[in-house]
């Protein structure tokens, strides 16, 4: 920008002083639309949800008054709740750990230069951009034991003797859904690690090389420690996303009777949709919300995203 700047010093200083005088009141018109949306559609529903979890609601949504801890009693009285909670832990830890591992490998690969690398980057964003419901329905179809094309493929390449009903029972269904969850989480994870790898300075790698470090040593002792920030961010954001994930299990294992393939999130939706118990669902949502808040707290403590401002 070749704009003439006539001694900006005094002007800058007066501007700074003026800026310091800007009160919150002056900022308000600029922030008001955002604040209205955040308070109206995020903060208020949190409050309303907590309030609802202590109310007694009819199946048609009529508020029948104070319920004390009845909804929580009913929630913790659900006999399949322990199983659902175990599932949730397996779901989150399994999907996130696999996504992180595969994302690390894939990022390392994409960080190399080879013909077609740009095209591959574009290909990998497809599962990230595509609707998760639409992606999962392909697997619902493909894994069908009768007309499923993936089943036929697995038989044709000799991995299976006969087609298998992956989504007919809870355990294989849940594991298949985990695989799909990993599939849709890997692209984002990979790109976070790619961004992290780009911050590793080249001369550091050269220095390691000159010092006689092997490639494995260079990776684990030099590159990996520098990816710590990316690792923390990718882990936490994935934990939040995977914990809140509804469409994959809803489409893939939703038709299996019972609750053996449910997480707390899908259970909450079943309580709303099948049982129409908004009050009990709210109690479970409050528990889920507390989990999310704890994860956000860890994020803010470890990553400290505000440190630059």
């Amino acid at each position, binding site marked *: 920008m070749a704009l003439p700047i006539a001694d900006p010093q005094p002007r800058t200083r007066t501007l700074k002083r003026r800026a310091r005088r800007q009160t919150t009141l002056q900022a308000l018109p*600029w*922030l008001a639309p955002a604040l209205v949306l955040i308070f109206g*559609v995020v903060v208020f529903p949190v409050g309303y949800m907590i309030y609802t979890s202590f109310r007694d609601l009819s199946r048609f949504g009529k508020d029948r008054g104070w319920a004390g801890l009845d909804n929580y009693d009913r929630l913790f009285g659900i006999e399949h709740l322990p199983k659902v909670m175990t599932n949730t832990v397996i779901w989150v830890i399994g999907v996130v750990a696999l996504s992180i591992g595969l994302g690390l490998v894939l990022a390392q690969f994409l960080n190399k*230069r080879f013909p077609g690398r740009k095209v591959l980057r*574009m290909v990998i964003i497809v599962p990230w951009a595509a609707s998760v419901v*639409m992606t999962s329905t392909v697997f619902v179809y493909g894994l069908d034991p009768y007309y499923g094309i993936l089943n036929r493929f697995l038989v044709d390449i000799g991995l299976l003797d006969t087609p298998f009903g992956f989504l007919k029972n809870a355990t294989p269904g849940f594991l298949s859904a985990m695989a799909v969850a990993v599939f849709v989480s890997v692209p984002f994870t990979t790109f976070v690690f790619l961004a992290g790898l780009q911050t590793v300075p080249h001369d550091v790698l050269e220095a390691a090389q000159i010092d006689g470090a092997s490639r494995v040593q260079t990776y684990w002792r030099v590159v990996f420690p520098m990816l710590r*920030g990316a690792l923390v961010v990718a882990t936490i*954001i994935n934990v939040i996303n995977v914990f809140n994930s509804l469409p994959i299990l809803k489409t893939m294992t939703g038709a299996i009777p019972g609750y053996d393939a449910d997480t707390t999130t899908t259970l909450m939706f079943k309580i709303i949709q099948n049982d129409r118990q908004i009050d009990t669902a709210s109690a479970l949502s409050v528990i889920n919300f507390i989990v999310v808040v704890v994860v956000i707290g860890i994020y803010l403590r470890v990553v400290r995203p505000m440190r630059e401002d």
Partner: protein
Amino acid sequence: MSTVIDRPVTVSTVDAPRPKVRERKRWGLTVVGVIVALVFLFPYVIMLVGAFKTRQEILKIPPTYLPHNWAPENFVNMWGTPETPLPWNLYSTVVISLGGTVLALVAALPAAYYTARHSFRLKVPFMLLVIITQMLQPTVLASGLFREFVTLEINDTRLAMILVNAAFNLSFAVWIMHSFFASVPKEIEEAAWLDGCSRGQSLRRVMLPLVWPGIVTAIIFTFIACWNEFAASLILLPTDTNQPLTVALTRFIGQYESAWQYVFAVSIIGILPVVALFALIERHLVSGLTAGGVK
């Protein structure tokens, strides 16, 4: 560089045939790359092929890999099936996505500009609120949102979903545009003022071209997020004509009978536009999504 570790220059001057070895190795990586690409594309290939199969063929046992009779008429017939009023579903998706994007942008733009240019006492709490909102999803608040919209009597309207989408995508828009505004030196704007530009003129002529990529990223990302939204729509929009494509799609899948050819045809038109848009903003996404956590 073909590998992370590059040999010192002195070695390569002695080692004459090395470039060739390196070249071969790179093409070796391309082969691996093709395999990786196939792994990430196969569900969408199944989708594309399935969209062109007839109803009889897609339910055939055993299944065929490629259609014997290509059925492009699926893309026409899907608009008038008894399962779901698809024209309305597309209309809903478009209205909710456009509405949500416009609303999110209108709310985010002034906030992003102001927080990048001015410091004020509640700036850190405000940005903190933005980051916390980014990590919340409508899924966990579904019952609260449902209760709120029932009370406000806008449950089962597209307006409700426009509000939800705008609110939950606002933070990404604020954050990404904030970082673009903040990267423009204040001096450039001040120079424009000194040259006699009004505040509006300097915004339009000087700032806008510089932050345009950030605004485009915010617009496209919000639009895609609205387009793909599923969980809140599922709870908040029970009427079939209000439902977006993501929810309507599941209506083709019945317990006994499924119209997979329509599921896939709808998915193709639901996925193609967003993938194309997504490719445009890929470079800027990580910085916005990780709220500055990866530098």
